[in-house]
């Protein structure tokens, strides 16, 4: 009884905080901060997507940067060459990325553990090389610039044009909420539980009658769809895409976000995206040392907090509860004594 009440209160707080987040731009004057927050939202979507396959299904992929790129390039090419609006390019980039994700998953997921890592690495590199060398379509190393902003949204007589970074924030936030919602729905479903079963013990899961390969491929496809959405948003938000963004480094960055935040956790994905984006931007002050410090930080995080920030929080929570128990125990006894 008490528990349900508690979780109800928690839910109410979460919903309230979620709505409150929409008003964040009112408190931020510096458009550069808004730009960083928007980037965090895009990376959060990517981390959520990768976490589905890494955190919940236990299959490591280092090719998701390429899916991100496919989404971005599909949106960029459709918008620039065919003049399609954002509301068409985004679904199309999700569809195309899912199809490519499905194909790669179908081939790659027949492999296990380190072989899967190698396979996704290879696929990611191949896709990146296509971006780099298919000059007629992708613009080669110079990429595609001048991608138009999403068209003005009209709700009744109120117009929401996309001119400043502030204007993109609600759109991106909605997509992150959608991502969180879909993730929650998936992991609470039977399908999601099948995925965690595969993560924990693939053989046992198979023995229980879970179609392991089918489940993995489905999850991989959903995961790549997340990256496709993030890519489409990224292209229309930054107005420029170029191949080096989606090289191997991006795949590693997304994976690091998931690791630092904590695998198999929605909040972890968001926290990981925030930490890495903020530190990478903050270190712009020292361009020569930037990658060095950044790399060192990641090494320290992975070495000392292998379970990520969420692991740290859980550990703290556990200690807090234990301490509380220890403190409460004697008082209960005392109370008992006084009653006697």
């Amino acid at each position, binding site marked *: 009884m008490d528990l349900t009440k508690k979780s109800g209160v928690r839910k109410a707080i979460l919903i309230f905080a979620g709505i409150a987040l929409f008003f964040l731009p009112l408190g931020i004057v510096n458009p550069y901060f808004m730009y960083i927050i928007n980037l965090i939202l895009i990376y959060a979507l990517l981390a959520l997507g990768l976490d589905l396959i890494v955190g919940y299904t236990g299959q490591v992929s280092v090719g998701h940067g390429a899916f991100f790129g496919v989404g971005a390039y599909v949106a960029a090419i459709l918008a620039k060459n065919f003049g399609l609006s954002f509301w068409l390019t985004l679904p199309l980039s999700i569809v195309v990325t899912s199809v490519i994700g499905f194909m790669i998953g179908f081939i790659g997921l027949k492999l296990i553990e380190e072989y899967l890592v190698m396979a996704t690495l290879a696929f990611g590199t191949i896709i990146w090389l296509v971006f780099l060398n298919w*000059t007629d379509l992708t613009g080669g190393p110079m990429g595609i610039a001048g991608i138009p902003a999403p068209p003005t949204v009209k709700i009744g007589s109120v117009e929401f044009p996309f001119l400043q970074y502030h204007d993109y924030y609600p759109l991106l936030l909605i997509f992150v909420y959608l991502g969180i919602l879909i993730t929650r729905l998936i992991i609470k479903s039977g399908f999601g539980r099948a995925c965690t079963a595969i993560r924990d013990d693939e053989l046992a899961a198979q023995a229980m009658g879970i179609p392991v390969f089918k489940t993995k491929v489905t999850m991989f496809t959903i995961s790549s769809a997340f990256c496709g959405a993030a890519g489409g948003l990224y292209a229309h938000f930054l107005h420029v895409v170029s191949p080096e963004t989606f090289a191997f480094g991006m795949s590693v960055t997304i994976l690091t976000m998931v690791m630092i935040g904590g695998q198999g956790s929605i909040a972890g994905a968001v926290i990981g995206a925030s930490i890495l984006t903020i530190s990478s931007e903050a270190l712009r002050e020292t361009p020569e040392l930037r990658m060095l410090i950044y790399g060192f930080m990641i090494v320290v*995080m992975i070495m000392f907090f292998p379970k990520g920030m969420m692991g740290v929080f859980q550990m703290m929570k556990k200690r807090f509860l234990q301490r509380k128990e220890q403190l409460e125990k004697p008082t209960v006894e005392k109370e008992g004594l006084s009653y006697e």
Partner: protein
Amino acid sequence: MGQSVNVFVKKTVLFMILAVLLAGCSATKSSSGNGSSKSESGDSIKVGLQAPMTGDNAQYGQDMKNGVELAFKKINSEGGINGKKLKLIVGDDKATPTEAVAVVNKMIMNDGVKAIIGGYNSSPTLAAQDVSGPAQVLHLNMGASPDLSKTGNKYLFRVILTGSVYVPAVMKYMSEEKKVKKIAALFENTDYGITMYEAAKTSAKDLGLEFAATEKYNPGDKNFSAQLSKIKALNPDAVMVVGLYNEVALIEQQAKQAGLKVQFFSPDDSMYSKQLITLGGEAVENHIFASMIDLNADTEEMKEFKKLAEENNIPAQANSAIAYDAAMALAKALEEGKADAEKSRDALANIDYKGITGPIRFDKNGDRANTPMIMQVQKGDFVVIKQSE
């Protein structure tokens, strides 16, 4: 139990240190954020440098930074601009469009720069001017692409001569002086490489020259044997290489090893750096190219620049000299326009300043207009073989 507590404490302490580190980073950022409003009323004017500070093109970025720093040092020691000191904010664009957008965003919105010097490469500059234009920030770039003349961004100026001037000059020289008829082209597969090649093809047609081969490579490539063996089979009179010094040096070394002994030339001065000779050695001897600047020139401006460079222990590179000129012209415009965006722009558009690289004037597209000189690598040094007209 006791041990696990110990480990926990250790981890917590480490985490705290990291958190402090992170907080420190964001603190410095927010303080400079407040600085953006300060810079307008305070005693300094901030100018950004958007250039490749890391990666394959880091040398160019470093040269540009050196040049701008020299100019700022000189201006600040002479009292600054209307009493305000110039302050340089360096941003690494990694020679890529997305990083350029990110770093220009940061410099304009967070640091509140009044002007940006840079973009060494064309593609990052094209992407970045989409941000700086609407923000009314002066952008003095060093990109070579003709697209930079067609942006319609009236805050965008180009401080270097472009391919449209360089290419015909070099092609004419090769045709008239070197009696070249059949040329093989090897160029980097970028905006810059492709447009330079297209321009060369047009001017070759006018001069009655023939392009026998068109080979491409990607920036950062290390092995060119496939392209070079194809070129060798066609037996051209000369090879035109469009690229930056690291690739040009490698190409000519590998050409020598492959037994390809013809005249190499480049349509512009993108490889005009001591690094070319350091990396290429003997192999780059006799390389011909067009340049807007001669570092051995006997002019007052050049002497002053060299003196300053020597005092500050900075190598007197071509790119440093061009960046120095850009910074001096910008300072003059900011002084006349009293650092007001609109007025400074007009001042820069109508500027007539005698720099190291000749008279600095801009046409209505924001491009420089004076003819280049033809230069050659001779005995490990750069020598003018034809003066500018």
